[in-house]
């Protein structure tokens, strides 16, 4: 499994023919499997004539950079092969510079912007009492004091203490949020923690099935499944309902914190294309990220 993916990683533009050959042999086994009479659900997936090869060329991206290649897997364990195809990923989204500092900034922002500190202390005027001068200014040989609630006194007010409600809201610049997403996706992909499946359809709705699947594929304890739509397939919804470490998320909810919180990120093909489309749209729009436009200004 890991070996197969590392093969996908190592493949560059001049060797797609070899990969195609490998994939064709997969398709042959798939057909054979169907002939021997596998599960009905498996048959529906394996019934396609050839493997799913989504080798988009991305003519808009830099011609020097080849698209990233990844396997397309299936969540159906009864299928003849785990891998059912190959997909090209846009290098600007899945092969961007993994800026760990930007990832950190995003995570910090996600934590802080909704944080409200309720800690509260009273200043000297708010503490009860302390209106009368405790003793005369002069003549007693004692230190001069004007109030028993002075910060110097025990039981007095607090100087520079926390005051409720302190909000920590701020907005991270748009470009940083955008780059945070590409950096996280790229880091996840580089570390083999990003898997692509053709869909979230599963033959079973048992939690054990999903757990076993993730264990067999070494996806780790926590897995985040992301689909294009927010209406998820019935089986995976039921299976992941009791597993608090396996979560489903629509593309519009994708964020840096959740991607890092889970060990493995599983995207459907539709989700991949949607993410690419949204991120590239924002990368290219001339109006919003003003920094992007600076070098073109006259």
């Amino acid at each position: 499994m890991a070996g197969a993916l590392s093969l996908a990683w190592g493949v560059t533009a001049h060797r797609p023919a070899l990969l195609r050959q490998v994939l064709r042999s997969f398709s042959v086994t798939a057909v054979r499997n169907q002939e021997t009479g596998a599960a009905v659900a498996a048959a529906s997936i394996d019934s396609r004539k050839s493997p799913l090869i989504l080798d988009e060329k991305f003519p808009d991206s830099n011609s020097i950079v080849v698209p990233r290649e990844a396997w397309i897997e299936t969540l159906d364990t009864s299928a003849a092969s785990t891998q059912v195809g190959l997909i090209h990923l846009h290098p600007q989204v899945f092969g961007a510079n993994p800026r760990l500092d930007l990832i950190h900034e995003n995570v910090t922002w996600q934590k802080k912007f909704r944080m409200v500190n309720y800690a509260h202390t009273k200043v000297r005027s708010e503490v009860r009492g302390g209106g009368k001068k405790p003793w005369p200014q002069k003549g007693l040989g004692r230190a001069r004091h004007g109030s028993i609630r002075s910060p110097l006194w025990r039981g007095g007010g607090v100087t520079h203490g926390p005051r409720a409600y302190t909000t920590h809201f701020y907005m991270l610049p748009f470009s940083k949020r955008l780059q945070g997403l590409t950096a996280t996706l790229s880091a996840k992909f580089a570390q083999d923690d990003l898997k692509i499946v053709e869909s979230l359809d599963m033959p079973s709705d048992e939690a054990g099935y999903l757990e076993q699947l993730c264990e067999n594929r070494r996806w780790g304890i926590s897995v985040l499944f992301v689909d294009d739509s927010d209406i998820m397939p019935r089986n995976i919804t039921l299976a992941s309902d009791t597993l608090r470490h396996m979560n489903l998320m629509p593309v519009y909810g994708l964020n840096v914190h959740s991607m890092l919180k889970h060990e493995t990120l599983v995207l459907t093909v539709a989700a991949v294309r949607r993410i690419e489309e949204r991120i590239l749209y924002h990368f290219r729009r001339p109006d919003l990220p003003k920094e992007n436009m600076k070098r073109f200004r006259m």
Partner: protein
Amino acid sequence: MASQGTEKALALLRRLPRVSLGNLKPNPGAVKSARRGRGIYGGKTHGAGSKGSGQRQNFMRLGFETGNTPFYLRFPYQNYYKGHHMRLSYAPLCMGKLQRMIDTSRLRTDVPVDITQLSATQLFSINPMEKMGGIMLKDEGIDHFQATLNLEVQWATEAVITSVERNGGTITVAYYDPISLQAALNPMAFFKRGVAIPRRMLPPQNLIDYYSDPKNRGYLADPTEVARERFVLAQKYGYELPDIRSSPNQEMLLERKDPRQIFYGLQPGWVVNLEDKVILKPTDPELLEHYAS
């Protein structure tokens, strides 16, 4: 994208532990603590010295030389600055760059190109409050210019006019007062204000000659005079003037704004309601008379 550095970073990341919430930290030196330095790191005055303008930050006015006759008063009056507070500056746009904007699909050629279209490319910083008058066409890269356009800019030279007309296009120079210019630069921001589109003011005294001259293709010039000057310029530079009337884009090329009009298709006095997507037009005869050209 994906420079060598990126590739190296991604290859390095492959052999490193999984990036997760637990092992992230900012770049070294990126986070500064907001503490006030004590002792030798700040001391009593934090470098501001004691007493006087250094401490209080009430610095001397610009050009003041503490008792000397200031430099700006020491020499006689510079005549070329006469009336500088009235003059307008223009954002330059070279013809070569204009062609490149068309080649890279930043600019449409099937609609008249005016200040609104040019400003929508986000490539210009024009501030009417800083006495900028709009866009001026420069003749750099003029040999590369091949587009057929209906151009409306605020300043153009004879060479520029020649190159536009030789390609079968038309050009007008038009004045926008600061308020109209602000509206034309960012129409959406203007419509959001919910006010009526103003009348475009006529040029000030010192510019009225420029904008009335058919040689400059001024928007206040007589169209028949302009047609004649087009022919004269073609004779002067020895090129055959393409016939606009036989062009498929004839309608677009001959579209002109009224001297009081700011946006194509919208008249002064109208209110554009973006919320309800309706245009409100005045009916009061007094208003109609006010906004009439």
